Every structure is written in structure tokens, then in C-alpha cells.
């Protein structure tokens, strides 16, 4: 039997309820619960009140308007569902209930549980680590596509890729993307591309569908094949709102196949714009360089050193001119000197010419024998002599002889 309580260890109802609330709300803050719907009341406020029950127990539940608006199927009394939510305790009534934030039909609920289980397991294995992610090539030459050969996804991708970047070669490996065997085919296709090793990037995906339709991309064999791929993989499954485990493990996640096609290649128009920009910057650059060299050249032309050397050349020229002038003058002087001398000599020579003496009034007397008479002793009275004057000869007879008295 219990001892009578000490006052300070006794709990009030509020205190113990508070403890229970704390415990329950902490331990069951996010749970999946499977059960059958009963006592369903859709309140005018929009909230749903119901119980989940199975053969052994029942659990009060509420799904508020904001959450139940997202439920895409009609819920009815007796329906098997899987609900996600948290346990909440309502102290005034000493009741606990499940606050539901997500609800799925039972079958889909199983898939969700499987999804969560595999996601957790692979996350623990480190398959989603950002460090495992491979970078995408900037300009892929060959792109491997793993999807259904029919359907909108492949058509959309081919359209976008052809428009954006026709340089890339596309290799489609057709696979089934839903139903039995789809996962194995997809995984095999990833291996085939890795063995062939000629694509630089892979797109694995399909168009939108139900959770079951997309299920292959939640299977471990596909997820492991993506993780093991040495070629970067883009997952492109369903619509924006669909999430698969392939998305977590892929090197890059695209919200849709079309988005994958957009991000896997550069845009041709952007590339062309870039090329034009590069061309412009080249032009600017080369013009700038030429201008800079021109400026340098101008600076050199205006420099003192060059001016000085030009000046020196000028000075040299001047000097040369002067020298030429001097030498000319000197030569001229020499010539006129020589000319003067020559004239003197000429005069002298002509002064010595006997004929020029005759011009001055002298005459030469020659005897009969032709010899020049230099003395009175050479002639006698009666001799005939010839007198040569400047302008002619005279025949003369000697009449008298007067020798000079010395």
C-alpha cells in the first residue's frame, strides 16, 4: 500500500496533465497512423472531426480547414486511410487527439511509409551527401536520355534541346517508366550508359502521374544506380510538386523533363550574344592597344632626345654647307692667284720676245750674211745691211761709221 503523500510531492491535476502533454507532444510530434475513419463530422468552420479506429482501439482526430483543403480525395465513414500529424493534449477535457496535416488513401499511405523508410535509410547511408554530387558539363557533346520513347516528356525534351543547343547529340535509351520491371529497366539503362561511356550527362525521368505511376523512381535499385553512376545524372520526374528519392540522389534535380532539357545545355541565343560581346571586346581591346602605341609614338616624336638628334643633324648640315663654302672660296682664291701669276709670267715672256722689243722702237741690223750686227767693227762703209723694224725691213747702205768713244 502506498504511503500517505508528502505535501510537496503531490501533483495537481493541471500539473500531471501538463507532464502528460509535454511527454506525448514531444514523443509524437510527427507520426503516420493507419486506421479506419469513423464519427466523421465536417464542421461549418471547415474543420473535420473524426476518429481513427481499428479492431482494438480508437483515436480522436481533427484536420483543420487549412490542411484538409489539400486532400484530393473524398473521405467517407469507414474508409481506410493513412494520416500524418502530431498528438496534441487538450487539458480542459483530459483528452488527447491526433492533429492531422496530411491524409492519404490506405494503399498510397503504404507507399508513403515505404518512401519515408527508404529515404531515411539512404540518407543514413550518405547517398544524398552534397559532396557526392557531380558537376554538370557546360557544353555536353552527347546527352543520354532514359525515359519512355512515347509520351510528352521525350517530345518536350527533344524540342527544347533542338531549339537551345542543336550541337549536342542525343541518345535515347527507351525504357518503361511505370509498372512491373520499370525500375530494373531504368537501372539497367543507367549502367549501359556508364559502360558505353560516351555521354557526358544523363537525364532520367518521365512526365507527371500518380504516386504509383512515379514509383519506379522511388525504388532502391534505381536510386542506387543513379548514386553509382560516374556520369552526372539529372532526375526529371513528374511535375514541380512531385518528389522522388531519385531527386535526392541525383547530381541535379530538375522539376520537370522540360526543365531538365533547359538546364542541361546552354542556350544558343545566349551563346551567340556572348560571341558578339567577345567580338566587341576584342575590337575595343585592339583599338585601345593601337591607340596606346600611337600615343607612345607621338610622345617619342615630341621627345627632347629625338628633337636634339634632329637638331644635331641640322647642325651637321650647316657645318657641311659652311665647309663647302670655305673650300669653294679657297679654291677660287687659289685659281685667281694662279691666274695672276700666269698673267705675270706671260708678260715677262712677251717682254723677252725680241719682236716685242722692236715694238718699243728698237731695231735689229743684220749683215749680208744674215748675222746680227752687234758692233761697228763688224761693218765697213759701203756694206749693205738689212734693218728689221717692228713692222718691216729696210735695205740700207752704210755711209759713215762713228764708233762711240769710251
Amino acid at each position, binding site marked *: 500500500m502506498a504511503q500517505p503523500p508528502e505535501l510537496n510531492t503531490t501533483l495537481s491535476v493541471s500539473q500531471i496533465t501538463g507532464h502528460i502533454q509535454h511527454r506525448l507532444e514531444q514523443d509524437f510530434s510527427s507520426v503516420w497512423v493507419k486506421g479506419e475513419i469513423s464519427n466523421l463530422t465536417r464542421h461549418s468552420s471547415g474543420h473535420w472531426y473524426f476518429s481513427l479506429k481499428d479492431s482494438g482501439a480508437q483515436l480522436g482526430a481533427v484536420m483543420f480547414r487549412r490542411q484538409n483543403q489539400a486532400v484530393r480525395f473524398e473521405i467517407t465513414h469507414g474508409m481506410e486511410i493513412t494520416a500524418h500529424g502530431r498528438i496534441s493534449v487538450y487539458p480542459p477535457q483530459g483528452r488527447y487527439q491526433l492533429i492531422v496535416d496530411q491524409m492519404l488513401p490506405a494503399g498510397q499511405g503504404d507507399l508513403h511509409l515505404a518512401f519515408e523508410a527508404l529515404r531515411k535509410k539512404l540518407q543514413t547511408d550518405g547517398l544524398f551527401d552534397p559532396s557526392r554530387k557531380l558537376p554538370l558539363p557546360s557544353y555536353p*557533346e552527347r546527352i543520354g536520355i532514359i525515359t519512355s520513347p512515347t509520351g510528352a516528356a521525350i517530345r518536350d525534351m527533344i524540342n527544347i534541346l533542338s531549339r537551345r543547343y542543336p*550541337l549536342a547529340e*542525343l*541518345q535515347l535509351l527507351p525504357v518503361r517508366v511505370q509498372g512491373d520491371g520499370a525500375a530494373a529497366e531504368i537501372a539497367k539503362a543507367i549502367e549501359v550508359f556508364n559502360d558505353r561511356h560516351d555521354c557526358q550527362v544523363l537525364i532520367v525521368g518521365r512526365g507527371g502521374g500518380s504516386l504509383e505511376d512515379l514509383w519506379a523512381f522511388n525504388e532502391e535499385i534505381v536510386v542506387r544506380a543513379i548514386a553509382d553512376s560516374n556520369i552526372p545524372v539529372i532526375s526529371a520526374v513528374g511535375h514541380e510538386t512531385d518528389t522522388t528519392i531519385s531527386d535526392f540522389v541525383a547530381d541535379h534535380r530538375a522539376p520537370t523533363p522540360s526543365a531538365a532539357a533547359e538546364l542541361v545545355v546552354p542556350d544558343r541565343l545566349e551563346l551567340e550574344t556572348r560571341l558578339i560581346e567577345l567580338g566587341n571586346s*576584342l575590337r575595343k*581591346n*585592339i583599338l585601345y592597344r593601337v591607340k596606346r602605341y600611337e600615343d607612345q609614338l607621338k610622345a617619342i616624336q615630341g621627345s627632347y632626345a629625338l628633337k636634339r638628334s634632329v637638331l644635331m643633324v641640322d647642325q651637321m648640315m650647316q657645318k657641311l654647307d659652311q665647309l663647302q663654302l670655305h673650300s669653294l672660296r679657297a679654291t677660287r682664291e687659289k685659281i685667281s692667284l694662279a691666274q695672276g701669276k700666269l698673267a705675270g709670267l706671260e708678260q715677262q715672256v712677251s717682254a723677252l720676245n725680241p719682236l716685242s722689243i722692236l715694238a718699243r722702237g728698237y731695231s735689229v741690223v743684220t749683215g749680208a750674211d744674215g748675222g746680227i750686227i752687234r758692233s761697228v767693227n763688224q761693218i765697213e762703209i759701203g756694206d749693205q745691211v738689212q734693218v728689221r723694224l717692228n713692222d718691216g725691213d729696210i735695205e740700207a747702205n752704210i755711209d759713215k761709221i762713228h764708233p762711240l768713244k769710251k
Partner: protein
Amino acid sequence: MTKKNKSFEVLMGELEALVAKLEGEDLNLDDAIKHNEEALNLIKLCRTRLDSARQKIDKLVQTPEGDWQQEPLN
């Protein structure tokens, strides 16, 4: 490898490198003009590639022997 065989990626890489070199300072005018001409040729080649490219689309099919073969997607 001749220019014609080079992938677009390689050509773009060479082009970007040339432009970067030209934007650097220590280049004499002759080299700059040479590089510039080379870069302009690369731009022309890249643009021709872009303009003339027609996408090749193949699918992979398995032969009875189990090998994978490329054939054009119709």
C-alpha cells in the same frame, strides 16, 4: 587535332583564354594583333557551328547478342 575536330567546348575555352590574354597587359602589338585575329576566327567558327548544327538523335537498341547499338530515332 585540327580546329574542325575540336568540340564546341574546347573552342569556347580557347576563345575565352585568348580574350583573357588580350585583356592582360604584357603583350606586344604584333602578338596582340595575332591573337585578335585568331580570336575573331574562333568566334566565326563557333557561330558557324551554332548556325549549322542540326541535332542528331539516336536511340540505343539491344541486338540479339546483347550488345547495344545506335540507330536514328524516327
